[in-house]
């Protein structure tokens, strides 16, 4: 049982199991909490149009709000898109999804994916440093924020190292890369990475709540 076998075999198996249990536990445990009924007279019959609209349009803010956060928006989307392009469209990642989901999709040339990965890594590191220095972020950051960003950066670093074939021999590089992905899967349900799932209901709620009072949010 080499490190790579362990990483590809039992470690991946248990990481995915704990990941799945954790996600459903936290999602169902949150969604089923007591929800207050609102008897007041709504200005809009159903919350659906406003809620659905907010899920998308909350990313596009009116100029008077946007001009203060252009930096956060640009860097945020830059590294998110770079990260997902790397994860979803690298040639060697597709078989992983194919084995998990049963279907695959076309991939992008390595050159493009590597640029996306490098940009994403650079921005993530810069944002981590900013989190330590910015007056607001210093005040509101918890250990979860730091763990989550490190756990997100590690697969990117080990992935780039494995691709560039520097550092350890290939199996160890690949094993470390897979283990870092498993660390991400294990931490996922317990930290703020859950916003991958929680963002959409939350945006729906703000859209519906403000829409109920006749305001586009």
């Amino acid at each position, binding site marked *: 049982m080499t490190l790579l076998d362990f990483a590809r075999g039992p470690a991946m198996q248990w990481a995915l199991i704990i990941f799945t249990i954790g996600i459903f*536990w*936290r999602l*169902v*445990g*949150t*969604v*089923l*909490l*007591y*929800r*207050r*009924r*609102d*008897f*007041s*007279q709504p*200005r809009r019959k159903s919350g659906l149009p406003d809620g659905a609209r*907010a*899920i998308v349009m*909350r*990313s596009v*803010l*009116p100029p*008077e*709000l946007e001009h*203060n*956060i252009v930096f*956060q*928006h640009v860097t*945020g989307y830059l590294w998110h898109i770079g990260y997902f392009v790397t994860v979803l469209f690298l040639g060697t990642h597709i078989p992983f999804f194919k084995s998990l989901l049963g279907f695959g999709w076309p991939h992008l040339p390595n050159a493009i994916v590597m640029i996306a990965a490098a940009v994403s890594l650079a921005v993530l590191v810069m944002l981590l440093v900013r989190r330590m220095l*910015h*007056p*607001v*972020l*210093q*005040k*509101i*950051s*918890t*250990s979860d*924020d730091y763990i989550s960003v490190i756990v997100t950066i590690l697969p990117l670093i080990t992935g780039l190292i494995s691709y560039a074939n520097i550092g350890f021999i290939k199996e160890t590089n690949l094993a470390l890369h897979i283990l870092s992905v498993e660390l991400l899967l294990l931490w996922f*349900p*317990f930290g*703020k990475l*859950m*916003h991958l799932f*929680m*963002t959409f209901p*939350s*945006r729906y*709620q*703000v*859209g519906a*709540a*403000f829409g109920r*009072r*006749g*305001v*586009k*949010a």
Partner: protein
Amino acid sequence: MSEQAAVLGKFEEYIAHLGERAPAQQGSDDERLARAKQAFRAGLDGAMAIDLECCIHCGMCAEACHFYESTQQGKYAPIHKLAPLRRFYHRELGPLRWLFRLFTRDISLKELGEWQEFVYNSCTMCARCDMICPMGIQISPMVGVMRSGLAAAELVPRALAAGTLEQKQQGTVFGTGAAELVKTVDTLRQQGLVVNLDKDTADIMLLSTAMDVNVYTRSLAGMVKIMNGLGVDWTLRSAAFEATNFGMLSGDREAEEAATRRIIDEALACGAKTIIIPECGHAYAELRWEAANIHGQPLPFEVVAISEFLGRELQAGRLKLKSSAIKQRVTYHDPCKMGRLGGVLDEPRALLDALGVELTEMESHGATNYCCGGGGGVMLIEGAAMLRQRAFEIKMRQVDDTGADAVVTTCDSCRTTFITGAQNANWHTSVESLVELVAENLED
């Protein structure tokens, strides 16, 4: 304008001593903490849970908050106001609470005490941060839950505590009871106005506030004049004329519900089909959106703000206004609880349009409007004076950018904050009440 300032001066002096009448502390520390936790547990719900679960601490909410923008201090970041509530949620209600309890420290009374500055002095619950949060978190309602926790732990700023105690025990605000109302009504009647007070039944039950009865009597007079002009069946009820709700401002659920129930019962008693809320922001938020929930079922009558009502009457053609009566260039300040949190955006503008006023909007107006800095009871907290003034500077800049000579608004708190803010900053733009403008320009 000067006569108003004089009366306002008297009122300010009254507020300055309000704190002295704050209730003494009763519960022991442990009881107060337990009650705070109970308030948190009762106040939180599934929607707030999802919000608390998906905050990624990106700090963007601070970029929308006038208190942070004007002071640039990290501690005024909106999400920071919810830190204790978030930890409580993860320890007590969240799905992984048994796990989080191992790694998240409990909340303490001392910490809640420190948070008074964040959830009262530096937060008007204006919900501008709710408009920017990339995760769609509604921070303002949760600040309300924080306030209910601090209120349960007797940690309310003295002025708000005193106001709440008075309203809870005597049912009056700033010492203005039925007698003071009658006195003002008599003065209006001497000016030739027909004031329906305590009619047995009426289609419309008009509400007023202590501020209107004592300070902005022309606003009350304006409402009366317009109502008579429209020939609607209305009345004021001395048993429940007070729209202000100190319980909502301080977070004291019990006081809040008592004041609201009093208005609902009175409306049912006189068979009103509509309740009209005077120029008061938080009263609209309370009665329009919370009263039915306190009542426990949909209300049998409609709840409308005066600006909303007049807008509708105008659009229905029943209200006729003299246009081009006002020459000044004007900008409109949307009271947060009317506009962003109430949805009353178009009616006031329709009225201003009918008055032939040249309206130039501020950069942030309507749903993204900057708060005047005095709402949510912050106007009464003297500890928040510096913060209010710094926040007001943003509003002044926004108004100056439009080049308007006057600001029209439709909320007593905003109006008072504008007047005192202008005095402190020696700022010459005047502030007008929408209702008074309409009343002065009714077509005969």
